[in-house]
């Protein structure tokens, strides 16, 4: 079993939080984990990504080779596409449809979504709508985590446990909103027409 995930977004959108929850849950599962992050300059409103590798066997590279990612989770459509060349031909993109526009030449969103739909396996989610429904527009990253949950080689209870751990110090209200966001994302994925893969062996 081996799963390579690219998490993509803009600095401040909560990429590292998603990575933390999945990585912690994977450790409980007894998996080997490597998680490469971006710190420093790019965190200031720039493109950021995290390479998250989970495996039963030894993981060598901290970086996922181009062409090996099983899954791209994009908190933002342009960023989801930026790492398209990391994806396996049969890999999947789960992306938010909500653009984060902080550059002058931001492309037409419809063009971006068309491009995502061109991938053989994809799921596009209105994370803003679901996050607001969950009680806070800041929970969009947890909506996406929920949408990806069924595809991850970890138990849902473990994910929930570490979402709690992540937001505990912000109070029960924040925890509840994030858990709700996770549930809404999960429901959205279940409703969509796709077959969850069990990961590669």
């Amino acid at each position, binding site marked *: 079993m081996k799963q390579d995930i690219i998490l993509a977004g803009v600095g401040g959108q909560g990429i590292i939080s998603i990575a933390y929850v999945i990585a912690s849950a994977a450790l409980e599962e007894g998996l080997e984990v490597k998680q490469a992050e*971006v*710190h420093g300059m790019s965190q*200031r409103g720039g493109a950021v990504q995290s390479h998250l590798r989970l495996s039963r066997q030894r993981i060598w590279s901290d*970086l996922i080779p181009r062409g090996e990612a099983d899954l791209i989770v994009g908190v933002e459509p342009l960023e989801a596409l930026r790492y398209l060349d990391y994806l396996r031909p049969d890999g999947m993109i789960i992306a938010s449809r909500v653009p984060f526009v902080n550059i002058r030449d931001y492309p037409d969103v419809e063009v971006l979504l068309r491009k995502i739909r061109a991938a053989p396996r994809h799921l596009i989610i209105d994370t803003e709508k679901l996050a607001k429904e969950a009680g806070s527009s800041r929970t969009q990253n947890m909506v996406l985590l929920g949408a990806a949950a069924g595809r991850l080689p970890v138990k849902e209870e473990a994910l929930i446990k570490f979402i709690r751990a992540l937001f505990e110090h912000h109070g029960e209200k924040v925890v509840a909103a994030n858990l709700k966001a996770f549930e809404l994302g999960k429901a959205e994925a279940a409703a969509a027409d796709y077959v969850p893969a069990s990961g590669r062996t």
Partner: protein
Amino acid sequence: MKPEILLGDEAVALGAVHAGLSAGYSYPGTPASEIMEYLIKAAAKSKSFVASWSVNEKVAYEEALGVSFAGKRALVSMKHVGLNVAADPFMNSALTRLSGGLVVVPADDPGMHSSQNEQDSRFYAEFAKVPCFEPSNHQEAYEMTRQAFDVSEKFGLPVMVRLVTRLSHSRSTVQPREPRGQNELRYGARQDWTLLPVNARRRFKGLLEIQADLVRLSEESEFNRLQLNEKDRSLGVIASGLAFNYVQENLAGRESPPSLLKIGTYPLPENLIRRLVEHVETVLVVEEGYPLIERSLRGIFGVPGKAVKGKLSGELPAAGELSPEAVRPALGLKPLEKLGFGGFEPAARPPQLCAGCPHADTFQALNKALAGYPKANVFSDIGCYTLGAYPPHQAVQTCVCMGASVGMAKGGAEAGVHPSVAVIGDSTFGHSGLTPLLEAAAADTDMTVFILDNSTVAMTGGQPSYASGERLLKMIAGLGVAGEHIRVIEPLPKNLEKNTQVIKEEIEHPGLSVIVAVRECLEEAKKRRRSG
């Protein structure tokens, strides 16, 4: 002990603590900052050792050197270019006889994710003739740091642990071992620490004499491993540090992989290299950074009868960061199948100043004030405000190294640039801006220096700044800048007209002016509110 999930930076920090660290020093810089962040947290918890941010890397190194003189163990960490700042004490400390272990950890940034160059710190270790460890994973980062202290104390030399961004900022599991205690106070001998020519000549001779011992240490190190393929002698690979992982990513599990020498310590294990080279026809050298190993293999004449391939021969990219896919073709493998962009080019999203950032208001006023001066030049420095180079501000024309703005503005003014403006942050000013400003004040150079006081080291995550607030203003006056030309502005949208006027006045002043723009970093203000 329980395994822990750590960043590469943190694995080094934990290794140092478990090696019996007495003090750690650093200056913030990506990708090294998290070493000191971890040490500071651990020190606050255990209260058994010192961990603190220094005013710059040179001072950090010298503080560590003082700890070593006193017989105790010290760690000094910095980003790669920080070692340039600390190069003076680093090079010379190799000629002292250290009393307590001293480990220096530069974190290189191949690919320049957050840096102005991609220099390779292994060359510094070679230059100073001191041992260097290059970890390939988190466990090695931990183990090598511990061992580096032992080697340092055995030979009385500073020892380097070289990191790169992808290890510094990647998380994985580390299995720690039983920690050991700290050293007792034990002063160094004066003849080994007073580098007068008479002592330095003797010490340098000693340093040359132990080089063979250091090579032997590498020959025997568990971090250098040779695997020979007895059946297939066509290709042999030498791979160091993270490059070893990229090779293994492509080769592991393959039938009859090429002979492979993993390198984790320097000076190079010469016999191991000889054994590999003798065994194969072609040698491929894969290393992250500059081609140090490849160059020492090739020399000028190359290896007779053998082909040596790598960055110098063009098989591997000489610039930028390595990756699993960059290594594939050099190993004779086809690229993996992947989804293509189909002609789509994702628009770049460079970093930028946060919405509402005080620097944005300063740049707006500065641009407005300089509108009537087509010959104006703004020399900038290292920090968030370097992002003023990007649209919409495009307010600065240079960024070279820490503190360069002030010296360059003085040189520029003396060459005829007018107005000659420097823009430097409060912490960068404390790091390297004081000395050039002292000179400009003594010469009363016709230039205008902006010090952007946001009371923190913002770009690297909000470390404390020494040259901020009242102390900063006193420092500027103390350097001899005329009081009436030290102006304080508050960079806020509502003050735009007022601030523009102040800037215009000081540009018209035919001597040195310093304008201090004071407003707290938004991110830090947010953090402070959150923590109550």
